[in-house]
């Protein structure tokens, strides 16, 4: 597997798109930090990038990369290599590449300009989100043979997790506004990794406002070490489950 990872990394790091991604992230993070007098404001603007751009680029880049390396994967399958080794190797390679891009483009500026606990939570959330959307991209890629359809599925997944899900959630809240919804919302937010990532950052960034509105319920849950570890564990599941399903499909896929 290490060799596969090595060749995937070699391939991606020669790719100009990854470099462009790092530069885009660097420009936005440096821009936002330097434009704003307040570091907190820079971080809160960067949160939008974190929650929208990172998932989008991660899922699209991975899907396109998967289909572009279809030949490579075919070549590997004819070799005495397990399919799971091949897929996990490619996953790890892509994951490491995008994670490196995120850490260079956003992680490093955040540490330099912010360096607070909020910043570290920010980096943790972004890293997990990157790996989750790489994982989802693999799922989208193995369930179809067609590149265009694969990209379409990926876009839909991204759109669903970043916007549609929250829209539905808001409507559900309105519909059941007579009931106490805090606990239900905590549960529902676990079903969307983007919400989880956001909440992890919010816990540090906007805890005062959250306290004002939802009282202790929210903080007691997510503020505790238990809640934070639970949120991180659920996000790890969000990495593991899609790639495991993808693996199952890929094992019996006809190439």
């Amino acid at each position: 597997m290490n060799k596969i990872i090595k060749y995937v990394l070699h391939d991606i790091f020669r790719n100009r798109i990854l470099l462009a991604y790092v530069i885009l992230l660097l420009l936005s993070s440096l821009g936002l930090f330097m434009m704003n007098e307040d570091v907190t404001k820079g971080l809160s603007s960067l949160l939008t990038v974190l929650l929208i751009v990172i998932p989008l680029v991660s899922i699209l880049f991975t899907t396109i990369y998967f289909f572009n390396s279809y030949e490579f994967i075919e070549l590997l399958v004819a070799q005495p290599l397990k399919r799971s080794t091949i897929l996990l190797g490619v996953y790890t390679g892509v994951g490491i590449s995008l994670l490196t891009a995120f850490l260079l483009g956003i992680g490093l500026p955040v540490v330099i300009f912010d360096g607070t606990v909020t910043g570290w939570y920010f980096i943790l959330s972004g890293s997990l989100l990157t790996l989750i959307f790489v994982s989802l991209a693999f799922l989208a890629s193995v369930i179809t043979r067609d590149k265009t359809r694969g990209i379409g599925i990926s876009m839909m997944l991204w759109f669903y997790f970043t916007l549609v899900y929250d829209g539905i959630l808001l409507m559900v809240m309105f519909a059941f506004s007579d009931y106490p919804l805090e606990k239900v919302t905590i549960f529902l937010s676990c079903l969307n990794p983007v919400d989880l990532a956001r909440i992890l950052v919010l816990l540090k960034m906007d805890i005062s406002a959250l306290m004002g509105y939802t009282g202790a319920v929210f903080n007691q849950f997510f503020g505790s070490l238990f809640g934070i570890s639970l949120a991180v564990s659920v996000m790890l599941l969000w990495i593991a489950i899609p790639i495991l399903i993808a693996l199952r499909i890929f094992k019996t896929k006809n190439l």
Partner: protein
Amino acid sequence: MLRSKVIFRFTYITTSIILNTCFLLFFLIVLSTKSTAREIVVKPGTQYSTIKKALEEAENGDIIRVLKSTYIVEDLTIDKSISLIGVDFPVLDGRHKSNILIVNAPKVTISGFIIRNSGFSNIKDKAGIRVEKADTIQILNNRLENTCFGIYLAKTSTGTIKGNTIIGTSTAIQSGNGIHLWYSHHINIINNKVSGQRDGIYFEFATYCEVSHNLCENNYRYGLHFMFSNNDNYTANIFRNNGSGVAVMYTKHIRMTGNTFDQNWGSSSYGLLLKDISKSHISNSTFSKNTSGIYMEGSNELMIINNNFFNNGLAVRMLANCEKDTFMLNNFRGNTFDFTTNGSENNNFLKGNYWDKYTGYDLNRDKIGDVPFRPVSLYSQIIERLPSAVFLLRSFMSELLDRAERALPSMSYVNLYDSEPSMQIIRP
């Protein structure tokens, strides 16, 4: 020429006589006071081994110096106008019985003591220093430890409470207030530090007082708590990390300037809670990292000028029953929400504030934004009706709602805006 010279000479002589007489008189007065005021020294193993004994002997105007030692004291009543001065901080230990010192006479000074372990009672308020119906009292540079109430003033006027440190160590249920004023007026409260009490400074019917340069932190309930206490000034105090922040109620003609309200956070916690306050002035203060910077209820005709609101959950929460309040030249930066309200009609006035969330432009370069700023965001209006929607804070969804509102201000139903938002941070 000659005539004028004579007049000048005459005037000179008269003036010097008057001056000399005055000086003599003044000297005599000082001398006579000095000669009658005695000094009694309290020291274990001497004639005056207890303060009580010294008090019995003392007359009005005497000074009692208490040397360093530990004295067991319970309900020690000072009923003469004397100065009780601790040398090298002697300890007055109440052994958890009752009040420690009680002042019943005017013109009393208490300074330089460590006063600890008053009684705790749910029925009667026990205090480290209890002053009743006295005036012209001075309580200076004492350290009060583990007292139920620290310094308790009832029906007292004209006094100074300065440089004291009050540290409560009991539990939230048992503890009383650090500095407690009831039906008192013209009291200066300066440079004290209060922590671990129920309320740091508590005023009820306390008027014409000056409260300045005090530090109230880590108290269980409010750092400062007052009601029915008109015409007081609060200057340059720091209220930090108190259970519920600062609460002021049912009062008018208050001036609060240069205070810091910091890190008061919790589910019902406020930097400054204003309830039925009117005709008052809040300026040059800093509200940072509070759940609500200012929470206003039924408060009218307030001038809120030149304050800084940093990193609060809600910088200002103004209920619909507030009227004719003015917010000018304040900075709003890094708050999750700048302004929230529960109503749609609004009769308040915002002008020239700096809002970091303002995205308008300034084409004529006069440092004033060309389009008004609406600080009550559409998303915050949704949360107002649906508190659990706060879970979607900073999501793409809430971002879109707020952007939509900026494009179509008519979507917002709250009629509150800053007509001249400042393009740059306001420096005092």
